[in-house]
């Protein structure tokens, strides 16, 4: 028998209501073996789901009805015009958990996601800064300005790339860049 523990259920629930691809599962009460796991879902039986692309799930949301609810179900067999609006809503809520509006209601999850992303970016920035102070080796001598000036002078003296490159751009008569 397939079983779905509450930890895996947690990853299935929630999530943005994309075009009918996310849905929440409401399982039957685990009548047997209720002691080993807190909430085990028996996935071998018909399950309830709220999906915008499948309006009528395999089973009603509430199948264990109280006395009053059973009476209401009996009344449902008669003319529906005799039902009050509250009774109609009650019948709807017996059969379904969330209405379409509730299914499609946007969540504030994006704020959490964005906040988390920015937080970790900031943390990474702090780590990089610490590394720059405590981990980086000393700056190479060859990157200092005086060394680079001497290097450039040597390259010009050697006539590096005299046709189209470096030395071609240097005016040797005037001693400056062209």
């Amino acid at each position, binding site marked *: 028998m397939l079983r779905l523990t509450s930890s895996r259920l947690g990853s299935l629930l929630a999530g943005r209501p994309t075009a009918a691809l996310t849905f929440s599962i409401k399982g039957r009460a685990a009548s047997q073996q209720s002691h080993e796991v807190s909430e085990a879902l028996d996935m071998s039986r018909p399950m309830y789901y709220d999906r*915008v*692309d*499948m*309006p*009528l*799930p*395999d089973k*009603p949301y509430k199948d264990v009805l109280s006395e009053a609810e059973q009476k209401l179900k009996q009344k*449902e*067999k008669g*003319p*529906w*015009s*005799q*039902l009050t*609006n509250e009774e*109609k*809503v009650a*019948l*709807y809520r*017996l*059969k*379904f958990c969330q*209405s*379409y*509006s*509730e299914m*499609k*209601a946007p969540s504030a999850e994006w704020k959490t996601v964005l906040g988390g992303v920015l937080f970790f970016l900031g943390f990474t920035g702090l780590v990089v800064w610490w590394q720059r102070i405590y981990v980086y080796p000393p700056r190479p001598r060859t990157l200092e300005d005086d060394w680079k000036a001497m290097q450039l002078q040597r390259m010009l003296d050697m006539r590096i790339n005299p046709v189209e490159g470096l030395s071609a751009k240097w005016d040797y008569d005037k001693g400056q860049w062209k």
Partner: protein
Amino acid sequence: MFRAAVRLSVSGARSLTRTQPRCQAPLASRCYSHGKQETDEEFDARWITYFNKPDIDAWELRKGMNTLIGYDLVPEPKILEAVLRACRRLNDLASAIRILEAVKDKAGPHKDIYPYVIQELKPVLSELGISTPEELGLDKI
């Protein structure tokens, strides 16, 4: 306006007049270049016959409805009338209301389809005593 089921393509037809899809494929995702193609009227008639079965059972109602909602179209009011009558035979008011919600959702950004459908279904809704989700406040959160 439109004689058969309104087809909504992903590219978003802005008007209600029937768009010409690239392939005249009334069955959801099939694009035949050969073979007989079902017209919109035949499609509607087939579904009306399905839901008009006098002894339709709850499974068939659910299966039919879920399949119909899976198509890229908003069902014609006459199909929906047959569905609502099937709900009545099954003594299932909740499903009838759910179906109206599903139709509104199928219309997507085309906000004028659902009021038209409700307007066409008004005689059936009052005959059977079905309230719309708006009347029951189920369209609010």
